[in-house]
């Protein structure tokens, strides 16, 4: 098993690798348009991304505010992080990365 940091940068995703991959420890880092998974409830429901079992969720603060969202909008499952925090996640907390 592995410790994996997954980056999602899209809202409508065209791959299903995310659903299929498993990791002992998985961090899901929402950046770019991936931040919508942290703040938008389509038809009142959380994004299916947030149901990935056992994962830790992060969202990049700068990419939230760029799109007009703030901490107040963020799903309670998701931790708000800075660019510096993402560096630490990559360098210290996870063995490898996957930008899907």
């Amino acid at each position, binding site marked *: 098993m592995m410790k994996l940091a997954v980056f999602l*940068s*899209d*809202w*409508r995703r065209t791959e299903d690798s995310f659903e299929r991959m498993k990791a002992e420890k998985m961090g899901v880092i929402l950046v*770019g*348009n991936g931040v*919508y998974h942290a703040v*938008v*409830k*389509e*038809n*009142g429901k959380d994004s299916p991304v947030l149901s990935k079992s056992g994962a830790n969720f992060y969202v990049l603060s*700068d*990419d939230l*505010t*760029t*799109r*007009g*969202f*703030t901490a107040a909008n963020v799903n309670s499952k998701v931790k708000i992080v800075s660019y510096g925090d993402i560096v630490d996640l990559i360098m210290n907390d996870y063995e490898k990365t996957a930008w899907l």
Partner: protein
Amino acid sequence: MGAVNLLFVVQRPPYKSENARLALTHAIASQTAEIYMDDGDSVVPIIVFVGDGVLNMVKDQQAMKVYGVTSTESHIKSCLLIDLPVWVCKEDMTRLGLKEENVITDAEDMGAELKTKFVSFADIQKEMESVKHLLFF
């Protein structure tokens, strides 16, 4: 030809692609197109946000502060300022959980009189039927 109507349709979110900004800047360019046209001709654009495109309308976008890039919000307000109609699909706002208080409803801070118009997809369909050309982004 007289006045030619164009419908600019933005159907994807901002920033992940250049689409939304290019739709807005091209629509705004209608203002100066007369230098290339015959007397009496004009282009009359409407810009409409549908599907995930309604995410462009979320207000307080900090793109300039964070990335040094003009926000989509700022371009939308420029449209209102020059009386270029900005329409947003109501059904899609509801689907994505956006309320009027979350989105750009006017550009009063810039002195614009025109306001965002909240419309149904049926209204957009009618407009698609009546214009000469469709420009999907």
